[in-house]
């Protein structure tokens, strides 16, 4: 039996600030699989601000399924020890670049295959969610967007064979960021 509960007002977010590097990054944070292992692929990109300048103090996290489309529900992201957990974290470097080594996710439950992405940065007062769709994937959400907007959510396979996904926090090529139902709390009528 489900006991109905009163919806609670959420705790608001705040910026990650400039001083997270000693706390959140850790050895192996961006290596969801060991580099060079079977099926390993590099997912990388640059985080840009509204002037087109790279953002050297951003943090990107990804959540993904395994190649068969199964969402991993196992612990071990902080001490991977060979376990694939489908989650990783990468701080941007001085040039605003981030990179993960991972496997290509499958679509979950027959849906389009994408990496779920969240980005934090100094100067960014709350986290931003987005999706990085694999080349050739689409769904009703992506198809509902104007072409230029949809393009901001598409992973590109670069000349090295790596997957590239740039994030533009603002500007002409501003990435489409997402608001999920219930993000505004119980009074939003969601």
């Amino acid at each position: 039996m489900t006991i109905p509960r009163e919806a609670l007002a959420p705790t608001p977010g705040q910026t990650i600030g400039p001083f997270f590097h000693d706390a959140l990054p850790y050895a192996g944070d961006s290596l969801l699989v060991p580099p060079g292992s079977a099926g390993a692929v590099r997912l990388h990109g640059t985080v840009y601000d509204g002037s087109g300048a790279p953002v050297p103090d951003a943090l990107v996290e990804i959540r993904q399924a395994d190649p068969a489309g199964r969402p991993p529900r196992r612990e071990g992201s902080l001490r991977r020890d060979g376990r694939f957990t489908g989650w990783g974290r990468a701080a941007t470097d001085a040039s605003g670049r981030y990179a993960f080594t991972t496997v290509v996710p499958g679509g979950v439950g027959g849906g389009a295959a994408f990496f779920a992405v969240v980005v934090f940065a100094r100067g960014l007062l709350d986290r931003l969610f987005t999706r990085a769709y694999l080349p050739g994937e689409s769904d009703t959400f992506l198809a509902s967007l104007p072409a230029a907007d949809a393009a901001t959510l598409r992973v590109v396979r670069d000349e090295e064979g790596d997957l590239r996904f740039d994030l533009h926090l603002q500007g002409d090529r501003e990435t489409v960021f997402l608001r999920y139902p219930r993000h505004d709390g119980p009074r939003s009528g969601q």
Partner: protein
Amino acid sequence: MPTTATSIVPPPAPDPPEAPDTQERITAEIAEAQAAAATGAQPRIDFAPYRSSALRHPTKDLRHADPEGIELVAPVFGHSDIDPVEADLTVQRGGDPIGERMLLTGRVLDGDGRPVRHQLVEIWQANAGGRYLHKRDQHPAPVDPHFTGVGRCLTDGAGVYRFTTIKPGPYPWRNHLNAWRPAHIHFSLFGTEFTQRLITQMYFPGDPLFALDPIYQSITDQAVRDRLVATYDHDLTTHEWATGYRWDIVLTGAHATPLERDEQ
């Protein structure tokens, strides 16, 4: 007759250097921005008094998306990920850090009041003098060799987290002239779904810097700002050892149905 001093023409005056913003100006901008803003459950991401936000927020509306697939599943953390000692920031560096020892605890709940069990909580903070260990922190306050300011723990079966730490000090930053952040502890949280990811800051009750701080004030509703302020709890304070603070965290609502959750 002296020779005409035509050669001594002063060079054109350079443009005066741009005066740094004063606290008065920032405070006035905060009031203006808050008066113009609709109240909301989250900070304004386009909050001009926080100068670094200018080029770092999207100008288009966030796009509504129904979470699906991988977005409905949070990463899982467990006892193989962390060491229990990581929850005590006062024992990490072979000596007692300077400052007010404090216990900090609370519950992590989802938007329906369900405890978020066995999930990762990460914190980071300045030391008692308001200095981070971080190499980019230039504040000329002492580094404490016995304090990293970094901690992790897992919530227990009731969604409760517990840390032992040192009360952080306020510190100056460069948003404007004589800008100071209220004392705070950064928190990083996960729920049961990816969509509930949260990074925020916890503050201390009655901080005189609240009204002056454009980051805290980027939340335009006082009742919402209050959700970031811990409560002093004398029942948590321990005799001749440490003061106690309590702070509960509510994540946004989950979307998966109870059946889907059971299947996890």
